[in-house]
Each structure stands twice: as C-alpha cells, then as structure tokens.
C-alpha cells in the first residue's frame, strides 16, 4: 500500500472512530449507545488492519462487535431502561475533580508523545500478524497464559450463571 493511501485510510477510520466513541456518552438511549459502540469497534478493526494485525482485527469484529455487544444489547433490552428512569447525570464536586484528573492525564501523555522522536514503523515480513504467525507465538511462548485463559473463561461461565440465578 502506498504511503499516501495509508495516511488517508488512517483518517478515514480514526475520525468516525472518535465520533462513534463519543456517541456512546452522548446517546440518551442505551440501545443507541450500544450501536454506537459497535460502530466504534468496526472502525477500530479497520485501524488494526492498517497496523497489519489481521488476526486481532477479525477477533475484534467477531468477539467484540459480535458476541460481547450482543450480550450488552440483551441485558439492555432485558432491563428495558431509559435515561428518563435514571434521571440526568448529576455533576458532583468529585466528578468535576475526576474530570480534571482526566484532563491532567491527557496533558501528561500529550507532552510525552510530542517529545518522542516520532519513530517510523519498521518494515515487517509478509506473515506478520497472520493467523499462522500469531498462532505460533500463542502456542509456544505464551502457552501457559493461553491455557490459563481457557480456565478463566470456564470460571466466567460458571460465575455468570451462579450470579444471575434467582436463588443461590
């Protein structure tokens, strides 16, 4: 891909990504917020493809935009909540202090990023980020965390069933 096309594609994905991420907070209806988050995950998958992380981009779409967001939508519709029932967000002194902390964090990281040398990306081989390459590293260097993840998912399944049961 030419450099020009890569820069154009970066902005094509980045700007809608920020808009839809902000839409999660702006939306009055939780269903609209969830759909905005789905859009954000799709644009983020596009950014991942630009970073030649093909496997993670597909997992992002299948697991995040598919499985996890269906779970969110299911719970939203099960509880059928609207912002009218919840009332408007109250801005207490602690929340303003927290937002000031966020602004401080943004300032520190922006200073850190702007002072870095702006290194360019290294050129990578054709198999970088493919299922084969990532699968090999998962099953060699990261075999123990990989197996631990399967136990974690089992615990989460049992935990979700137990917590949401009517009588424990």
């Amino acid at each position, binding site marked *: 891909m030419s450099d020009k096309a*890569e*820069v154009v594609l*970066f902005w094509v994905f*980045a700007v809608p990504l*920020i808009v839809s*991420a*902000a839409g*999660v*907070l702006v939306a009055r209806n*939780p269903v609209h*917020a969830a759909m905005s988050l789905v859009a*954000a995950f799709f644009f*983020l998958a596009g*950014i*991942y493809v630009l*970073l*030649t*992380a093909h496997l*993670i981009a597909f997992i992002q779409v299948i697991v995040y935009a598919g499985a*996890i967001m269906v*779970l*969110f939508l299911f719970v*939203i519709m*099960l*509880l059928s*909540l609207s*912002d009218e029932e*919840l*009332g408007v*967000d*109250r801005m207490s002194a602690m*929340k303003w202090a927290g*937002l000031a902390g*966020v602004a401080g*964090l*943004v300032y520190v*990281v*922006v200073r850190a*990023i*702007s002072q*870095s040398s702006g*290194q*360019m*990306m*290294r050129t990578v081989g054709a198999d*970088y*980020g493919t299922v084969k390459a*990532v699968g090999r*590293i998962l099953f060699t*260097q*990261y075999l123990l*965390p990989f197996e631990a*993840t399967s136990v*974690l*998912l089992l*615990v*989460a399944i049992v*935990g*979700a069933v137990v*917590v949401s049961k009517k009588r424990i």
Partner: protein
Amino acid sequence: MVPVTHYLALGLVLFAIGLGGVLVKRNAIIVFMSIELMLNAANLTFLAFARQSGNLSGHAIAFFVIAVAAAEAAVGLAIIIAVYRSRGTVAVDEVDGLRDA
C-alpha cells in the same frame, strides 16, 4: 507511512473518552461500555508498539485482553442483572449499600 505517535494519540483520545464516561455516567451499563472503550484503547497501544518494533508479542497480549474482556463482560452483566433484581435500579450512585450512613 503513518508514524506510531498518531496511533498513540488515537488510543489516548479513546481512553480519555472511556475514562470520562466511567466518571460521569450514572447508568451502570454505559459505565461498562466505557470500560470496554478503555480496554480497546490499551489494545490499540499494544498493537501500535508491536507494529513499531516488529514484534508479535503485542498481538498475543491483545488476544488475551479480548478474552479477559469477554469474561469480564459476562460476569459484570450478570452482576448488573442481580443488582437490578435486588434493588430495582442500575444507577451507580444509588447502589451504595457498603457506605456508612
């Protein structure tokens, strides 16, 4: 070629939006979605640095982050349903049973 700083700045914006949502929103489900945004911002940073250094370890970490996020969403949403059953609300500032009177 897009320099790594662009991706880091994008991750910063995503993380700030998510953190702001966690602090401001009252609906526990929206707070949860904001946490997912923050996890994704961290993933983006991992992948950007992995691409910059030509190392695949960042991809493995991003894979684990997504797996943990799936587990966390399943348990967290179950907790939200349990809280709604027992208290009839999911407003995070009304669920304060552990606060002393």
